[in-house]
């Protein structure tokens, strides 16, 4: 159940990988849509934490082009609903996440990403 909300907060944590380690790139992603309860307050509170560009790029990579390229100044209900859909209702079930810097592969199976590192990768 990798949703874009957590993907947008996730960077690579392998040893020595400190720059350019965000966002992780999806590969062979299988997507599933599941309805979630709409909570405008939560989305509003979340906005400062979100990297807009990374979110839009990732969403595009997954075939969702409903978000504008630039973060709009004003948030209307329509946009909050789109954000809600992109952030909380798109689940990546299978595939891989790859670090753009060190190319570490985090496999996703059954919706659970495997974030374990090998011994030599632990900082």
């Amino acid at each position: 159940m990798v949703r874009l909300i957590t993907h947008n907060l996730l960077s690579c944590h392998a040893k020595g990988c400190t720059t350019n380690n965000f966002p992780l790139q999806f590969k062979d992603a299988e997507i599933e849509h599941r309805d979630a309860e709409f909570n405008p307050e939560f989305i509003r509170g979340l906005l400062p934490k979100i990297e807009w560009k990374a979110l839009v790029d990732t969403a595009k990579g997954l075939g969702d082009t409903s978000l504008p390229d630039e973060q709009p100044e004003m948030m209307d209900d329509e946009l909050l609903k789109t954000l809600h859909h992109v952030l909380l209702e798109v689940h990546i079930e299978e595939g891989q996440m790859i670090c753009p810097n060190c190319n570490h592969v985090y496999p996703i199976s059954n919706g659970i990403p495997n974030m374990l590192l090998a011994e030599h990768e632990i900082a």
Partner: protein
Amino acid sequence: MSRPELQAPPEIYYGDIEAKKYTKNTRNQQIQADMTYRALELLNLPPDEPAFLLDIGCGSGLSGEILTEEGFIWAGVDIAPSMLEVALEREVEGDLFLQDIGQGFGFRPGSFDGAISISVLQWLLNAETSHPTSSPPHRLSRFFTTLHSALRNPSRAVFQFYPSSDDQIQLITACALKAGFGGGIVVDYPNSNKAKKVFLCLFVGGGGQQQMPKGLESEVEDDARARFERRRERVRGKDKNGKRKHVKDRDWILQKKELYRKRGKEGVPNDSKFTGRRRRPAF
């Protein structure tokens, strides 16, 4: 029975069978629920503000379900695949990660509004290999440092855990403080053997605004404390038959043992009907 963390590493101990057993056990569910509510209370989040929480060692999502009920959105990490599988079967709401918390997190700074963790920290206190990154202090430091940066400023993280000695508590608090956290240990029902619960309550930022919460005390007030009475001095000397009374009788032994337990001394024998009983004469 020895504690589970002494038997095997978590991902092995919580295999398929144990994971199912743990989740189905109603007593476990009750304890887990109580501690989750208490942890949320200690988190002291602003009311009516939907928060994004991290559940460290979420297991099969027993505490996650409570988080969902309370209206929080959450993400959980755990190292035991079997536990996560049970969580998937139970269709919990949060995002799950298979992650070793001793290796640290990769979350971006300020991602979470708070973190809770129920019965997890003690698992970090055993070294599984001789590799330097496997030593408990190293793993604890890595864990606390990455967690500290993943939390919003100001916010809190609350950990319930089962320390087996005072040294362990000291090691954990020292690592947490070094990582930049404020706060410390809160003990609920400190004088009770069974109900006693240790919480590590950590603060991020806040500039000294954050107040250390108080531990819960038992309902029964300790008003049986004796005031000084001179009469007692006389009583101790001789009983009604004119014989000298035993100074170290059963009451005295029980009192001493209780005192040792309160002080956290290890290996205090249990009380039983045999406690302080007279032995038969030697011949």
